[in-house]
């Protein structure tokens, strides 16, 4: 299944619970149509990971996720030999092995005989696939999400290049494996580290910023349908005012949603400065941020029309 056009992309993603702007829909549509990976950048919590999930849901593809972190290596991302299984098999097949070795008159002949059987032990049967190998070998198209790729080490980034340009990976003992179906790839980054030009060149670039008021309004309405419209408007005005301050961590969409949810649970239907003060810890995650907002509460409430 594929998206028909940009409009269709928008509609399908919305059905999957992801309201997106025109530019997001355009890039997603093009990436799938031209089989290019997408590098999604933007502040934390604007829905980068969610986008990949929504695409996989909308298209009915399997989502395979690789969470990157410092020290992530090929063994954890690509494949690992299952030594225990290999040993177990050798144990069970001891008799068979001695049968094969029966004809050997000296040690070097025995080694040759065993070497002939090597393929049996270094075959796909004994490989434990990790996300990347899984993506390459699945028969259906899948969505690969390489999350927070900026947290991984530069070596891992270089290793990704082969996968992203040719959709193939090399296992020394077996050979090069090409993807059965080319996956839809999303890489997300918080810009913790600048990615290399080589990696960027292979990807379409998508920058997701904080949404504008209308878009955020729609998102809140979609995710939390039971909340009143006037309350959402005030809530979003307040959030936008808070974002304009120089905070350590600005509240993002997921925090807006948390806040809206909190208000619903508390059965609050009118947003007043006092309510904001009481529930501020849902949106501000640093004490200094909370202090700054509390100090400027008058200005915020005036501007947001509370």
């Amino acid at each position: 299944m594929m998206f028909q056009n940009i409009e269709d992309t928008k509609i399908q993603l919305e059905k999957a619970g992801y309201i997106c702007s025109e530019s997001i829909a355009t890039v997603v549509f093009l990436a799938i149509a031209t089989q290019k990976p997408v590098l999604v950048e933007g502040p934390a919590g604007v829905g980068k990971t969610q986008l990949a999930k929504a695409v996989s849901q909308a298209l009915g593809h399997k989502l395979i996720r690789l969470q990157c972190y410092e020290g992530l290596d090929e063994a954890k991302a690509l494949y690992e030999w299952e030594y225990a299984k290999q040993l177990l098999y050798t144990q069970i097949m001891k008799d068979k092995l001695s049968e094969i070795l029966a004809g050997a008159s000296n040690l070097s002949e025995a080694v040759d005989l065993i070497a002939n059987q090597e393929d049996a032990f270094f075959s796909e049967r004994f490989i434990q696939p990790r996300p990347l190998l899984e993506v390459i070998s699945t028969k259906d198209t899948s969505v690969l999400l390489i999350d927070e790729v900026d947290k991984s080490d530069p070596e891992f980034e270089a290793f990704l290049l082969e996968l992203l340009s040719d959709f193939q990976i090399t296992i020394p003992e077996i050979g090069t494996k090409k993807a059965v179906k080319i996956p839809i790839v999303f890489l997300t980054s918080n810009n913790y580290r600048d990615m290399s030009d080589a990696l960027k060149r292979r990807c379409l670039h998508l920058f997701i910023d904080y949404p504008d008021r209308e878009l955020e309004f729609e998102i809140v309405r979609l995710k939390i349908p039971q909340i009143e419209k006037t309350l959402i408007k005030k809530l979003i005005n307040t959030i936008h005012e808070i974002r304009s301050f120089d905070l350590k961590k600005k509240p993002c969409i997921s925090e807006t949603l948390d806040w809206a949810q909190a208000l619903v649970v508390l059965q609050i239907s009118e947003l007043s400065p006092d309510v904001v003060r009481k529930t501020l810890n849902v949106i501000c995650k640093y004490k200094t941020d909370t202090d700054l907002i509390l100090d400027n509460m008058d200005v915020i409430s005036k501007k947001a029309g509370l």
Partner: protein
Amino acid sequence: MVKLVLDFVFTLREAGFKISPSEIIDCTKQLEIINLLDEPCFKTVLRANFVKNIKKQDKFNIIYHLFFHEMRNDASISQSVPLAETIDAIYAEIKKKNMNDNALNLLLDFLKGNPLKYLETVKNIISKKEKKDEGRLIPLVSLSDILSAINNINMEVEHFLKVRQFVMTWNNRKAVAGFFSQKLKKAEMLANNQPLNIKKKSDEVVYEKRIDQLSEKSFLSLTNREVRQMQEIVAQFVRKLKDTIENRRKRQKKGVLDLKKTLRNALRYQGIPFKIIYKNKPKNKGKIVALCDVSNSVWEASRFMLNMLYSFQDCFSQVRSFVFISRLCEITKTLEKHEINRALDDVIKDSRIDYNEKTNYGAVFDFFYDNHLDVLNKKTTLIIIGDGRSNFYDTREDIFEKLKDKVKRIIWLNPESTMFWKTGDSLIETYRNYCHKVCECQNLIQLEAFIKTLVI
């Protein structure tokens, strides 16, 4: 279409964007499957392929606007106003009179909203001028041709309007004249100066050069704007160095064989040690205590030093910072509380610091010895940033010597050029006897080198 995209790419490249041929191929392929009349969509495709750095988004927007709107928009204005017919008539008349004038034709195209050829010609002329290459390839149109063509058009327009003085209203005549003079002014400006989108040197080069210049520039002579730019450069350097440190640490981390863990792991494989596990070497983290002179002459150097020290905080077990002029006060808490650049701004406003007083190193060391001795131990590196100019106050060498015995090493960074170290009230030569190292630290390059030796 491909030509248009290519022209746009060349413009972007001139402005310092790195765009590879494969990206252009991708982009043109993608343009085939979208609706080209949908402008936001068109822009998104170009942006997704050509701008892969968040910081360059704004620059892209400006160039996009210049390329696709500014130059073409005028054409639509000329067509939408009720005077379009008059303007077209003027075009026709001028063209009829000067059929073979290349420069004039180029200008007419420019006025009609097809600026590319004109821009290219102007670009050629300018690059020729810069190369001072008056050799074989003389451009078809020279600068003087263009300027005289502009003059010609101006005269023609004037003449045209004069003839129709009693046919057209005063308002309309003024509007037509205004339209032409505005556009011709723009054309003239493009020809005379180097406009935004046809710079010869790419911005990137200029930017890199600028970084070099800034890095070499003495801290003492930075303007406010440069200080802000420097903060960005420092942040870049910090990120790069952190990557290097992490790589080295990983390689150095492996210590001796961890027999216990290896055997335990081997149990899964019938005692065969498939995975050899090594013990990690414990990180040998030092403690840093920084004493920074914040009097006018030294503040900028102190500021960047503190900025870097705090960026590498996780490489040390602890960083404590003090600032002084004549009296010492601790700022560790201020720096921990806020983001570093904001914290440093707070430090300048700190009421405990009296900026009218004169620097007195002796008194400061004395006070430090009496009140903060507990922060020093044999793992501590004491870094002092200052010009060592103590306004002829007592040096208190004895105290300084005692401090030296308390710590692992003392490093003195002097933002003053070595040339002046022995002049006037500089005590740096006196204190030098007790320091393990005294470095000149006038600009970013020297500061970087110092930080590298400190953390790697």
